Structures are given as C-alpha cells and as structure tokens.
C-alpha cells in the first residue's frame, strides 16, 4: 500500500526527520489560508500516487497566497496519468544548495533491508541506477542489529557529504530507519533530501510503501489508504478478499492462483495482441464458492472495456464439478450478456464440462485447453464467436 507524499512526510516527521511545515488542502480556499499562514512563497503539490507529477504540471511555485489559490484551482481536479488530483500539499518554498537521495528498500536476494544514498537527489533512483550506478552507495542492514551509526557514516562518506552535515545526516538516517521499521514499510525514501541555503538538512519530498501483509498490526496505517486514488473495482475486490488489478484490455479474466492468473492474462495477449489483451488480473483464491465467483463477475463486469470473460480454474483439492455449479449459480445471480468461456482442469474436469455443456446457456462456452480457451475469448471479444 502506497502512502501519499504528505502522509509519508508526516510520518517521517513523527520519527524525527526534519520536514517542511506545510499542510494538506482539498480546496483553493484552504490553500489560500495555509499559504497566508505560512507567509512567503509556497509550493503547491498535487497528491496523487504516481511519479512525474512535476512534469505533468502538478507541482507549482507561488509567490504569495493569492497566486497559490489560483494555482490550486487548476491543479485540484486535474488528471495525472489517469488519476484525479483531490488534494494538494502546501509547503513553504525552500532555497537549497544541494539535493541528495536517501531511501530504504528490501533487498530480496539478501533478505535484508538496504539503505541507499546518492549525491544525485531529485531524480528517480532507478534513473540514477541506469545512468550513474556508482553514485548510489548501499548499506545492507542486519534485521536483528538494525541500522548502526557507522553505516550512516559510511553512506555520508560515500556520497561525499560535507562533514559538517554528518551529525544531522546520521540522525535523519536513524529516524528514517525507525519509521520504516515501525511502519512495516517495504520502501521509505526521501528524495530530495536537501541542504538548505542556511545549512540545514530538510526532507522536501517523501514516499512510503507499506507491506500489505503487515497491515493487520497497523490499524492507523490501514486507515490511510486513499481509495479515491485507485479504481473503485479494486476497492470492491479488496472488500471481497479477491486479488484484482485493473488493466486496459478487453478480456475479463477470472482465475484461481496468482501464477495461473498471470499466465491466463499472457495467453489473451499471445492470441489477441495489443488491442485485445487482458482487462484485469483476478485471483479468486482457493475454494471458489458461488458467492465469491459472483463478486468476481460483478467486478469484472464493472469495467466497460470488457468484451468477453475467460474463466480458468484448476480444480485441485476442490472439485471441478462444484466449481462449475458455482459458476452457473453466480451467473444467475449476476446476469451476464457477454460471452463467457469456461475452462476447468484437474479434479472432476469431465463432470464439470458436462455440467457447463448441459446448461446450454447462450454465450457460455466450454474449452478443453488453455490455448483453446484464450483463442475463443479473443474471437468472442472481436465479435467473431
């Protein structure tokens, strides 16, 4: 789960990272009030969970409260990479002499968090990794030992930070790590961390991603989820305990198991090409009860791009015939006009096929293989079935 910039920075601040004393606003009037209170020039920053806000015109400098209000009128409501801006952060504008990067991610191969620093702040770290990998200094953190001061000093030394800033840098590194740890984060980054004109370190922008698996022990963080910032179908899916990601294609997929779900998506593109392709990732998990199947079908149908539905289930411990009956029952509950291709493999696949074929419903087709199922779904999406 990703946090907004303002949420991330507030949380960093709580753990001792110096942050600008800005506030978040949802209306131009609020922006005016905040800017007037802050006095002096401010930055109005759109709060959307996507990179490249600056280039998209979502971050603007205002000389005073009036200008801030005007800018907020254009920024609030604008679309950035498909997401509507509903909130802006109003921060005092800072003069700075240097931008650096400081972040923590999980190093999967090492099984440890790794803290990274770079003297090239203000650009995406992936960009630095491509263009100037030596500019990134890394320190693996032992999960039992935690970040040690000397590791922060190694980073400061590695990025040639002037020695007078070391003490502040070490403190910020420790605060960031404490925040990362306490939040069960999988990513926590300050970019840029600036050296201001008056020689202070300040976290101008921040980003955090929380481990979804750990939200059960972070009720406060779970509440921070901005469901406005995601497709409504994803919110509904989460409520139904269904793993769902909206995509741009035309074939709605319903699958059990994440790997098989991705594979099914891949097959729709293999046979349908760019213009057809998968409309979503959807894993209904184990069991496949009729209720869950119905919820999944509703979520798939909520996407107006969907032209056909592909159901691919491997009956393992659960039996294929039960799954087939669940699909028929769910279809009755939901009411579907789109063509639907069903493929059931594994336990009692033969019985499942008979149930589907005996139902003889219009627009409901049974496929033997995944290849055949994908090809049928593509034909159906093209209106050729």
């Amino acid at each position, binding site marked *: 789960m990703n946090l907004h910039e303002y949420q991330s920075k507030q949380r960093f601040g709580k753990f001792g990272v110096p942050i600008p004393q800005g506030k978040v606003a949802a209306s131009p009037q609020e922006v005016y009030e905040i800017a007037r209170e802050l006095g002096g020039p401010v930055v109005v920053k759109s709060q959307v969970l996507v990179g490249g806000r600056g280039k998209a015109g979502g971050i603007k400098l205002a000389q005073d409260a009036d200008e801030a209000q005007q800018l907020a009128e254009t920024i609030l409501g604008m679309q950035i990479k498909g997401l509507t801006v509903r909130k802006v952060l109003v921060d005092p504008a800072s003069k700075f002499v240097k931008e650096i990067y400081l972040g923590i991610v999980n190093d999967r191969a090492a099984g440890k968090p790794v803290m990274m620093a770079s003297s090239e702040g203000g650009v995406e770290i992936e960009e630095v990794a491509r263009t100037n990998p030596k500019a990134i200094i890394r320190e693996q953190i032992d999960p039992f030992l935690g970040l040690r001061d000397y590791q922060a000093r190694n980073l400061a030394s590695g990025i040639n930070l002037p020695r007078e800033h070391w003490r502040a840098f070490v403190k910020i590194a420790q605060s960031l790590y404490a925040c990362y740890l306490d939040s069960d984060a999988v990513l926590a980054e300050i970019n840029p961390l600036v050296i201001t004109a008056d020689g202070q370190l300040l976290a101008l922008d921040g980003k955090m991603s929380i481990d979804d698996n750990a939200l059960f022990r972070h009720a406060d963080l779970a509440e921070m989820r901005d469901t406005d910032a995601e497709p409504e179908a994803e919110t509904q899916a989460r409520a139904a305990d269904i793993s769902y990601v909206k995509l741009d294609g035309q074939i709605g997929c319903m699958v059990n198991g994440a790997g*098989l779900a991705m594979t099914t998506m891949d097959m729709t593109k293999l046979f349908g090409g760019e213009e057809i392709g998968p409309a979503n990732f959807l894993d209904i998990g184990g069991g496949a009860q009729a209720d869950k199947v119905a919820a999944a079908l509703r979520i798939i149908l909520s996407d107006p791009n969907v032209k056909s539905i592909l159901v691919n289930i491997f009956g393992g411990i659960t039996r294929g015939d039960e799954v087939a009956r669940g699909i028929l029952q769910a279809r009755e509950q939901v009411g579907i006009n789109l063509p639907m291709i069903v493929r059931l493999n*594994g336990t009692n696949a033969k019985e499942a096929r008979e149930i589907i074929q005996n139902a003889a419903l219009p627009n409901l087709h049974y496929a033997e293989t995944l290849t055949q199922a994908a090809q049928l779904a593509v034909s159906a999406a093209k209106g050729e079935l």
Partner: protein
Amino acid sequence: MAILADKNTRLIVQGITGREGSFHAEKMIEYGTNVVGGVTPGKGGEWVHSKPVFDTVKSAVDATDANATIIYVNPQFAADALYEAIDAEVPLIVCITEGIPVADMMKVYSYLKGSKSRLLGPNCPGMLTPGQAKVGIMPGYIATPGSVGVVSKSGTLTYEVVYALTNKGMGQSTCVGIGGDPIIGTNFVDVLEMFENDPATEKVVLIGEIGGRAEIDAAEYIKTHMTKPVAGFIAGATAPPGKRMGHAGAIVEGGEGTAEEKINALRAAGVRIAANPEEIPGLLG
C-alpha cells in the same frame, strides 16, 4: 531417489488441529506420506487422524524422531512456528502460510543461516515426490513417478504443468513449489542444484514469474553448472509495472524483474522457454 522428501521422511504437522492443518494432514496421510504426529500448543495428548498431537515441536521430535515439518499456522504466529522448528533442528521445514509480514521473514531468513534446517516457502504449495511423499497441498493424483524435476514459484500453474506432463506420460521425480513471497527459504538455484545432483532426475522444468531476480540467478546457475536439459515458462509478461500481481513478490519495480529480462536470461543460458505453458511437455520431448 528423489529430492527433499521421500519414503523415509517422517513428517509432523504444525497446526494439525486447525481447519487447514487437519484437512491437509488427512490428504497427506491418504497419499501415503509418513505423518508421525502434529503440534498444537495446549493440545498435547490429543489425537488427530490417529496421529499424536504434541505441545511443542521439540517434544514431537523427541517422541517421533521426525525429520520434516509442515507449517499451517496463521501469519501472525508463523514466525514463531518457524523459529520453533529451526530451534528443534528439523532438517526440512515447509511453510504453507500465506501473508507473513516481510519484516518477520527477514529475521527468520537471517536466523535460518547457519542453522540445521532447510526452509521451503513460505506461501508455497510445498513439494511432492510422486508415489513416495507429499509435503504440502498439491493434489496428489496429478503427478506420477518419472524423471522430470519441476520447480516453480506458483501453485495452480504448477498443477497445470505437472498434470500436462502426467497426461503426456512424462512422470516426475519431485515437484517443488518454492513460493511467491519476496523472501523465501529455498530458491530456484538451490532446487536446480538438487535436481542436477539427483540421479532420478533427467530433465527439469522451471516455472517463474515477474518480480525479483531469482530467475536471473537461476539462468546464471544453469549456464555454468547444469548438464541436464531445462525447459521453462515465465508468467506475467502482460503485468503492468509497480502493481502487485497477487503474490507479494510478483511485482516489477524500477524496471527490474520483468518477464522479458528473465526470458532473455534463461534463453541465453540454453533454457527452452515456452510462450504457452501447454507447450512445455513438447519442449522436453
């Protein structure tokens, strides 16, 4: 011969009195796995499926001489169950639990180093040596004894492939699900090495997916160490960057972990990559 578990495996089930633990314990027993007992704190002395329940892993191992354990425990308590199994020096630990916080797993992973245990999972379907032992949740009937080693990050996708192999008359030596979490105890390279050294395995199938670089490491290993032919499939070519595809580990981050780079690396290592998993039996032919 087989890898990880076979006829000589003596298995205990952590969480045997729970819904999932009890259900799958029965399935494993039905398959012929030598389940020697189970563990549920506070329920020592009870019996489940005619197997004794113990309060602690230590007492279960002391009493049954178990050499493998399988964990069906809620994510909140899974780390503790793992530490308990490691402390009891159980040689093989299979963790089925999905949803363990990554911070917990990083500590477990660190604790595991230098221990006497091998961990498979978490968030994995376990493993199956056809006709000998099933330590996990794979449906037993889809597999049949033979000489193809299968290793995969996935569950149902693996079943598809294994079932397809069986239907084509290509039996398996051992089928291993390593799990879809970002931090897992056993990786592709570990299992490939076991298959390379296993006389019962002649060919290998590797099923990967987006996220991380385990498949890149596997390609490196195959290139430099493997003599047995490998065929494979990588799921998630159509997954968008930055989005988690069900598995906690299935995410393309910062342009890394794409299906394309993995396929390229594996192809360069001589692996025959299927565009469609149904092609896999043909690629082994």
